[in-house]
């Protein structure tokens, strides 16, 4: 292995002037030579710190070893033992807080670029067309319904299928992938990649049903009592957009980030009129909020033709919840960041179109329950900013529909999230498990994937011990 190599191999990015005009992927990925060079830097620690820091516990040193040896297909097979979505996670995971954040190399030098390597081998496998599907050893008779085809549902379905269960994924939209297709833009995660991962999971024997809204098309109770599902995993995400509830918020030209991104990503509105769904993007766009969704919305607005895009955030750069890399990309592309301002009212014209956002200046006070310093309005500091389009990206909460239409499914009053045991993911309704954003509130793809994976373990345990008298108490009380 030889000498320590302190610097990580850079990954090529599309130049700024080119990327702000198109929805093509920004990050271009490693070549085989670059991947092997980067893999060479890994010390292959016998007691790795990166693996426990990964929510799905990929055997990172083992797959990097295979890259060092030039056996890229073996590398991707190792990843897929723990994560069926390597091409997705290699692109959108916050590796800096997880595997790469705990890498021992990172203490003094650049950490190993684990995400880039994961992405490389996944793309390599797709390019060579040699996707390897391990045959399932023994089939089990039980049926499991997975509700929602986002990251938690996909991983849960994949795990359960590999354990031999009969799994059906129900999706209410017309494409599979949940937030991966309606939320995350093409330039960060091309939709073909999500399609590829879904195809892989369906090869494992998972049945995919679209245009099926559990809670309306069928209720959860009907799935279990009439349609013969022995267990259910709810991975329905956090899709209900939040608004501030301030005057003028329903003026024309004010979108929730979810609507804006759904029109662009799921409905391909940026290709209107070739695609039928339109979108209105004016010259000056204000995005409210500074999380990953806000960055995605701001960068999408720029690509959809806006001349000036502003992020308006009530705290400071330090408190932003967006990944550093995403905020950096946004800044590189010329998005303006305005800190310590908070909208208090929108002003419109006589036809009801938004024209100005009135904001108030904020200062930071004592830390709040999130540990971040609480923003406090400075009285009398209101001023107006002219805008043509506004995108409200201040968070999403779970849709209330399933809880409303299901007997015995408890919800946390404040956030609308489902009550589920933290270890086993068992909800208050027997046979029903839940994980991902629907339990935690809006979080990351990989945390949802991890929840789907761990839940599959307990769904398996439940189905194998269903006749034990106190099985549900055991699962809901587990610590």
């Amino acid at each position, binding site marked *: 292995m030889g000498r320590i190599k302190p610097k990580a191999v850079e990954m090529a990015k599309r130049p700024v002037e080119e990327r702000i005009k198109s929805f093509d992927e920004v990050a271009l990925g490693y070549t085989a030579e670059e991947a092997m060079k980067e893999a060479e830097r890994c010390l292959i620690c016998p007691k790795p710190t990166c693996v426990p820091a990964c929510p799905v516990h990929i055997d990172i040193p083992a797959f990097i070893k295979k890259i060092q040896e030039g056996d890229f297909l073996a590398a991707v097979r190792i990843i897929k033992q723990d994560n069926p979505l390597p091409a997705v996670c290699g692109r959108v995971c916050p590796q800096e807080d997880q595997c790469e954040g705990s890498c021992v190399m990172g203490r003094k030098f650049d950490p190993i670029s684990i995400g880039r390597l994961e992405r490389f081998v996944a793309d390599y496998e797709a390019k060579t067309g040699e996707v390897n599907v391990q045959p399932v050893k023994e089939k089990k008779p039980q049926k499991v319904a997975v509700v929602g085809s986002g990251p938690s549902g996909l991983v849960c379905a994949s795990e359960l299928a590999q354990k031999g269960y009969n799994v059906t994924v129900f999706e209410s939209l017309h494409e599979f992938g949940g937030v991966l297709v309606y939320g995350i833009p093409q330039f960060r995660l091309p939709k073909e990649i999500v399609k590829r991962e879904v195809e892989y999971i369906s090869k494992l024997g998972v049945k995919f049903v679209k245009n099926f809204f559990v809670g309306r098309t069928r209720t959860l109770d009907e799935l279990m009592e009439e349609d013969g599902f022995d267990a259910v995993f709810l991975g329905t995400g956090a899709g209900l957009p939040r608004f501030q509830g301030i005057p003028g918020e329903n003026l024309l030209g004010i979108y929730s980030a979810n609507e804006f991104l759904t029109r662009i990503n799921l409905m391909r509105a940026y290709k209107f*009129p070739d695609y039928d769904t339109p979108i209105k993007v004016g010259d000056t766009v204000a995005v409210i909020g500074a999380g990953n969704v806000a960055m995605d919305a701001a960068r999408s607005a720029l690509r959809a033709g806006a001349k000036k895009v502003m992020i308006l955030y009530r705290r400071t750069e330090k408190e932003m919840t967006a990944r550093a890399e995403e905020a950096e990309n946004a800044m590189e592309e010329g998005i303006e960041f305005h800190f310590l301002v908070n909208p208090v009212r929108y002003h419109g014209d006589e036809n009801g179109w938004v024209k100005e956002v009135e904001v108030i200046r904020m200062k930071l006070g004592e830390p709040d329950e999130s540990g971040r310093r609480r923003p406090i309005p400075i009285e009398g500091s209101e001023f107006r900013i002219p805008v043509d389009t506004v995108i409200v990206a201040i968070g999403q909460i779970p849709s209330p529909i399933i809880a409303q239409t299901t007997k015995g499914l408890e919800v946390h009053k404040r956030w609308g999230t489902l009550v589920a045991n933290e270890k086993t993911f068992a909800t208050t309704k027997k046979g029903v498990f839940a994980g991902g954003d629907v339990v935690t509130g809006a979080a990351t793809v990989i945390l949802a994937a991890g929840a789907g994976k761990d839940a599959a373990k307990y769904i398996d345990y439940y189905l194998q011990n269903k006749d034990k008298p106190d099985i549900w108490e055991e699962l809901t009380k587990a610590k």
Partner: protein
Amino acid sequence: MGYKILFKEEVGPGAYRMIIDAPHVAKNARPGQFIVLRVHEKGERIPLTISKADKENGQITIIFQVVGKSTKHLSLLNEGDELADFLGPLGMPSEIDNFGTVVLIGGGFGTAVLYPMVVAYKEAGNHVIVINGARNKDLLLLEKDLSNIADEYFVTTDDGSKGLKGFVTDMLKQLIENGIKIDRVFAVGPVIMMANVAKLTKEHGIKTIVSLNPIMVDGTGMCGACRVEVGGKTKFACVDGPDFDAHEVNFDLLMKRLRMYRKEEQESLEKFEKELAQNG
């Protein structure tokens, strides 16, 4: 899963009835609910009220009017063709009960949405009065269906070519002035008509429900495109509605929001018609 068109007929100028093979949707559909469909792979998601759900045969009837590109395209499909997507039932079912005497008002194309409500109110034991209004007699929809079920059936036309010359509100006013005790009004049609009905019934203290038709995208509560103001609060028509208390609805906002994409809708339709002309 194909969503096959089993039956198609023209029920008025530019208005069509279609029966779609959709057993999953038919099974749980209730009056007042709607579906979202996409005509083709690049299509937009459009919401349409369920006109009839045949649970036994797994079929859903929709009635639609050609207003833009998507409905134009839909109207060109024929029996045996399949829709790209068909999702439902969506929205809250209407609150149906035996209220006593119910006046159901359909204006223009709204009459298509009215039909399942008339059936449901009648089945619940109400004395059902229907007011069917249109600009002229050629645009009146579902005359036979409605007059067959209703206990009392009235027609209004703007030009007087049939029934009372005037608006549906003129007819409603007559009923009220004649001393008929009305326990509930259900109205669906152009926003201005619903707003005027609401104004009239508010004066007389008659509980009134309207079915709103804002622009939608997903129809499942995740985008907020369909937000409406009811009682000063923002509601999502797709999950909180489409039925709302007419006396609480901000109709002015609804009207404005419906016009948001007018330019794009025009552009899309023109492009489609040009393509049609080119392809003969």
